[in-house]
């Protein structure tokens, strides 16, 4: 994560400061305020809002995983839903066949994700851009096919029902408990991403994204780092899928259509490519968007007339928003956020000074 300098011109003077994630007082205050908002939230919110928050947290994990791969390592993937399906089905199959507990299924899902990551990543060694996107798309269909094959062969054609996970003998069923579990999961995913990106691996990914030939000339193992990007992203995605399966208590291929892959790609575009904050903002936006549309339609006169075509309106509006972001604001929500930030930092001036500008 590239740190933008503060307007105050704060400079680090030691290695400890270099390593610190939260360094300035304003950041500490902001983090404390964020925690103060997030911690009591489940005790105040309605079950519906709590469910929304949980969905956002789940989507954030998946979006962060895809952001690592596409936004930082520059490898396009349209098979994200396939990887999440793999994680969910690992949970479903292990539960049905072996009654495996959660501390076994989650690592297994991560492992399956990592293996699939190697498979998804192998084409990237030869293919780039468009062709890579197409190959991941094809692999998505393959994974989903295997899942549906399992469903029909074993007679779970409507889906696999799984019990809630038990941690220390307590079954996790309440939305409140899920909120904290998913919150911790999302926060640790974020931490993993931040730390990976400021390590040598992250810099290697950035170099590959910028120019593969130059990266190779600099002595970076391009093939190994590409595969690593796929492996890390895929195992995170598979864990997200596994958590999704536990949260819903239900696994079915229906949930992992191509549309889900597109939604995740939309999240990182709408959020803003190459920014972890963007992944979270995008996940929030895309998850809440259908509910917002529904609320707007309800508020409009003659709501009954639209009730039947709510799905269609949602679909069309989602496509329209995606187009608007691609055409009008390719930097996404983060782009808007940065512009607002710059506006206030520079006020009363309108532009950043050109001399001494970073990057």
């Amino acid at each position, binding site marked *: 994560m590239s740190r933008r300098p503060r307007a105050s011109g704060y400079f680090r003077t030691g290695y400890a400061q270099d390593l610190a994630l939260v360094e300035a007082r304003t950041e500490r205050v902001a983090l404390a305020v964020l925690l103060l908002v997030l911690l009591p939230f489940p005790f105040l919110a309605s079950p519906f809002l709590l469910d929304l928050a949980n969905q956002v947290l789940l989507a954030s994990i998946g979006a962060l995983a895809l952001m690592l791969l596409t936004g930082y390592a520059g490898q396009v993937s349209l098979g994200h839903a396939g990887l999440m399906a793999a994680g969910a089905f690992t949970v479903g199959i292990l539960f049905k066949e072996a009654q495996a507990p959660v501390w076994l299924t989650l690592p297994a899902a991560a492992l399956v994700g990592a293996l699939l990551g190697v498979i998804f990543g192998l084409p990237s060694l030869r293919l780039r851009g468009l062709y890579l996107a197409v190959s991941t798309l*094809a*692999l998505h269909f393959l994974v989903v096919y295997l899942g549906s094959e399992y469903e029909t062969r074993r007679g779970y054609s409507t889906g696999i029902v799984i019990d809630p996970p038990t941690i220390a003998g307590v079954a996790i069923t309440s939305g409140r408990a899920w909120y904290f579990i998913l919150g911790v999961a999302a926060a640790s995913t974020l931490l993993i991403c931040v730390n990976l990106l400021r390590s040598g691996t992250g810099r290697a990914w950035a170099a590959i994204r910028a120019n593969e030939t130059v990266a190779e000339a600099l002595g970076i193992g391009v093939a190994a780092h590409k595969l690593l990007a796929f492996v890390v992203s895929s195992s995170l995605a598979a864990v997200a899928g596994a958590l999704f399966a536990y949260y819903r208590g239900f696994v079915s291929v229906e949930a992992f259509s191509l549309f889900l892959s597109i939604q995740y790609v939309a999240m990182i575009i709408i959020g803003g490519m190459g920014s972890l904050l963007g992944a979270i903002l995008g996940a929030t936006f895309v998850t809440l968007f259908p509910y917002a549309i529904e609320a707007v339609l309800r508020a409009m006169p003659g709501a009954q007339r639209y009730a039947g075509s709510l799905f269609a309106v949602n679909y069309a509006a989602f496509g329209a928003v995606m*187009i608007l972001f691609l055409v009008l604001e390719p930097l996404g929500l983060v782009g808007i956020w940065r512009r607002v930030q710059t506006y206030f930092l520079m006020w009363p001036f309108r532009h950043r000074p050109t001399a001494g500008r970073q990057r």
Partner: protein
Amino acid sequence: MQLAVNILVLAAIYALIACGYVLVYRVSRVLNLAHGELMMLGAYLLLMTATQFSSHWLVAIAAAVGLSLIVGVLVYLFLMRKMTGEMVLAAVLTTVALGILLRGAVVFVWSAQQQYPAQRLEIANFAIALPGGARISLCAALLVATTALVYGGLLAFLRFGRWGVRMRAAGQNPLLAAQRGIDLHAIYALAWGLSTLTGALAGMLIALDSGLDQTMAIIGLKAFPAALVGGLDSLVGALAGALIVAGAEVLLIHYVDPLLSEVVPFLVLIAMLIVRPWGLFGTREELDRV
């Protein structure tokens, strides 16, 4: 024998759809992932014109074909024109978004129910017995004939037509083509129009044969491997690719597992991407960076 006929019909469907992918890709290097939805829109346009001109089926089809040409040109003028010069991936994602938008709009306007334009046009879709004991429905036979006609027309147009030569030039080297006074925007708009037109033709004929609902867009996506196997910038390749994909699909469904239908084209696609990413007849290009 029936198997051979089935392969032929499916190959004709895939080939007719795939030439839309090829046209747009060859001219502007953009992969149009909304092609399936555009094709579905064409079929729904036929449903619309069918209610207007219910007595003259030829008029209805001609009107729908004309409308779909206009739709294609409009898509370029109002959307894809803004994406020229952007990253190729952004353009592709725009087409994906367009596809979602179209799918929602189609359900909103025409509902999600299965429709039968053939009934409205009072076309009797009877089966024709072929020598050898095989049968083919009238619309399927029409589809094979249309595919042959469209391919003949397109190949001749690209080879001899004034605008066809311009299209090839724009595809080969846009900068030089523009320097020679070729209006690139007009060429791109034409390519989008023709691509949508051929896709819509396929959509209409499939709808006449077996009804119409939202699953049609998936057929469009399944035809994409045919285009890629043959080489994304080669029309002849699309024909060959369609035959290969359709052959593999029909034979595997028949001998192995009907559930495979959804994945066979993509399995062929993966195999092709591993062996020869640029396809059977495609030009080997410097693949684009993200």
